[in-house]
């Protein structure tokens, strides 16, 4: 591509034009110098030449304001009145609503007569101006633009586009599972080896031994096993983003969001929400309309953030993959990422159309050309996410694991061992040891609490250990992985130490009630648990940020209650339905 900088500069009223490439990091110093020079010389872009009808509408608005309020407004201020649905200017001017609304409506009608949608006119006129300014300035040399357009015709096709998007996501998750299998096994073997070395050296202090092997290695180890999946996932996300496809994915999703009444600008917060809800909530600040902002903030936590990933990955690796094959693992993973969206769309629809009555606004999205991803940027993104994951394992997960271990270990009633022995004196020493460990956990603070609350989660198929995991995850979702790691390590006795959390979960069976002898983690319970995590508002910082961004606790508490109740209802429905269709053997 060639750019005639001198010609462009002349067309822009002498404003200096310099060539720079953010991708290659070239020309940054030239840009800096040009900005300084332009500021010194006080050069400004020539004003926009509005089409006649728009210019007339702007002038009429200026006149109306002067007539009604006695104040003179600039053309730029009149543009805000004409183009923005929620301009703050009328309040500042003290312009009476009774006179203001008809005046703005009439001005917009005049814009419409020139063939423009009043809410999209401003960017369209600017784009037209840029197109004219660039005429003859940019010369395409390689035909890249043509190729991009040809690929886009396929990838952005109204029907094929979403299907291809879904296919790409399926392929991505299938690759993540397949490629991560081996490094995950190595990490698991490493954790087991560490347990084998550290455990015997702490024989003299059994309490500390349990804290280190069952608590830290069982809990944090179970969490760290998913590091390869996180790394490979972000490798693919980086490749898609750098190649230019993510912007196309944004375009495909924007169709869906605009259909459910969300502001075009809601898209960026929603997309950020797929990584983490908090930056997503903070980026709602770019939405001027407070109603649209509120509606967006309310649905952002539905997006499947990366904290949910270890939960889905554990369930897929332990149950879906071994039972139904790797193809189903990726299908379930994509499905779980869509569950949040599936409920966010109707929620947004009801909020924007019926409760808040948000006015739609267009959104302009620039699609970059396709290019080869830059390895340095992709690796940097992978490293950032790995560092974040490891730092979380070493700090928050580590600390919560210690507390969960203590709650699952204490109180240590010395009579428990005697009671277990008395119940079945003929049992072997090994069996007695395992039963004693299980009895200790059941009478621990965590066990008692879990059993007291479990009936509330019984319709979802959760036993008391899952219930404890679910409740411990309200501050942060991924805590369930380490919590299950601790409760299954502490409770399963010596012979379970060599096994993995996934095996312990597969072996877990109901000990009493109508489901006695059947697996706790049946297909229904596994899907219900994943759906619960997909929909529930289990993230303390998100609720607090929502309160901060909406200016009070009303919407934050409302969102928490709504999402949690919805998660419970949908999880119960999934469990009941799947259990009837595929009863646990």
């Amino acid at each position, binding site marked *: 591509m060639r750019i005639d900088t001198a010609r462009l500069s002349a067309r822009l009223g002498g404003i200096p034009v310099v060539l720079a490439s953010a991708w290659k990091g070239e020309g940054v110093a030239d840009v800096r110098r040009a900005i300084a020079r332009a500021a010194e010389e006080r050069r400004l872009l020539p004003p926009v030449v509005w089409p006649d009808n728009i210019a007339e509408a702007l002038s009429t608005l200026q006149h109306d304001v002067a007539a009604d309020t006695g104040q003179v407004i600039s053309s730029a201020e009149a543009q805000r009145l004409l183009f923005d649905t929620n301009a703050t200017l009328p309040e500042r001017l003290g312009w009476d609503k009774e006179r203001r609304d008809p005046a703005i409506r009439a001005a917009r009608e005049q814009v419409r007569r020139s063939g423009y949608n009043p809410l999209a006119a401003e960017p369209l006129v600017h784009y037209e101006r840029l197109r004219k300014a660039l005429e003859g300035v940019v010369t395409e040399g390689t035909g890249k633009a043509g190729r991009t357009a040809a690929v886009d015709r396929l990838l952005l096709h109204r029907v094929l586009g979403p299907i291809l998007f879904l296919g790409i996501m399926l392929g991505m998750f299938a690759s993540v599972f397949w490629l991560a299998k081996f490094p995950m096994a190595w990490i698991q073997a490493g954790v087991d080896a560490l347990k084998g070395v550290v455990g015997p050296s702490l024989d003299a*202090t059994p309490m500390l031994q349990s804290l280190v092997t069952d608590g830290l290695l069982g809990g944090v180890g179970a969490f760290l096993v998913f590091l390869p999946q996180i790394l490979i996932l972000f490798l693919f996300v980086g490749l898609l983003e750098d190649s230019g496809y993510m912007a196309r994915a944004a375009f495909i999703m924007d169709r869906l969001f605009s259909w459910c009444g969300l502001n075009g600008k809601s898209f960026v917060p929603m997309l950020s929400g797929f*990584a983490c809800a908090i930056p997503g909530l903070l980026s709602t600040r770019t939405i001027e309309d407070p109603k649209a902002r509120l509606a967006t903030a309310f649905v952002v936590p539905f997006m499947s953030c990366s904290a949910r990933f270890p939960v889905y990955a554990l369930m897929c690796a332990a149950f879906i993959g071994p039972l139904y094959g790797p193809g189903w693992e990726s299908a379930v993973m994509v499905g779980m990422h869509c569950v949040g969206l599936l409920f966010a769309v109707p929620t947004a629809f009801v909020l924007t159309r019926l409760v808040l009555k948000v006015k739609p606004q267009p959104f302009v999205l620039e699609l970059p050309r396709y290019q080869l991803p830059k390895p340095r940027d992709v690796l940097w993104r992978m490293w950032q996410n790995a560092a*974040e994951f490891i730092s979380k394992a070493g700090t928050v997960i580590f600390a919560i694991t*210690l507390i969960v271990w203590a709650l699952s270990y204490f109180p240590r009633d010395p009579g428990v061992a005697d009671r277990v022995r008395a119940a079945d004196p003929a049992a072997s020493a090994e069996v007695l040891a395992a039963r004693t460990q299980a009895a200790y956990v059941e009478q621990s603070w965590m066990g008692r609490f879990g059993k007291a609350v479990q009936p509330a989660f019984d319709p979802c198929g959760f036993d008391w250990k899952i219930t404890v995991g679910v409740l411990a995850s309200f501050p942060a979702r991924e805590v369930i992985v380490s919590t299950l790691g601790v409760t299954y390590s502490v409770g399963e006795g010596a012979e379970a130490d060599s096994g993995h959390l996934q095996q312990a979960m597969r072996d877990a069976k109901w000990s009493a009630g109508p489901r006695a002898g059947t697996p706790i983690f049946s297909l229904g319970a596994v899907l219900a648990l994943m759906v619960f995590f997909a929909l529930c508002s289990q993230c303390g*910082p998100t609720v607090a940020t929502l309160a901060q961004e909406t200016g009070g606790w009303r919407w934050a508490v409302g969102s928490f209650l709504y999402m949690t109740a919805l998660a419970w209802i949908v999880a119960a429905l999934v469990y009941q339905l799947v259990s009837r269709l595929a009863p646990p053997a």
Partner: protein
Amino acid sequence: MSLDFVLVCAFVGAATGWLVRRWIAAARRRKDGGCAGGCGCATKVGKKG
């Protein structure tokens, strides 16, 4: 009281204290308008006017 018990209490107590301090610090940062989610997003946003 065994050494075992004292060590375990010290570890668990330190972890609880660290978490509480972290939550208080996060609440303070949120009050100042920044991101305190511990999400690693490094978002630094000024207080709303």
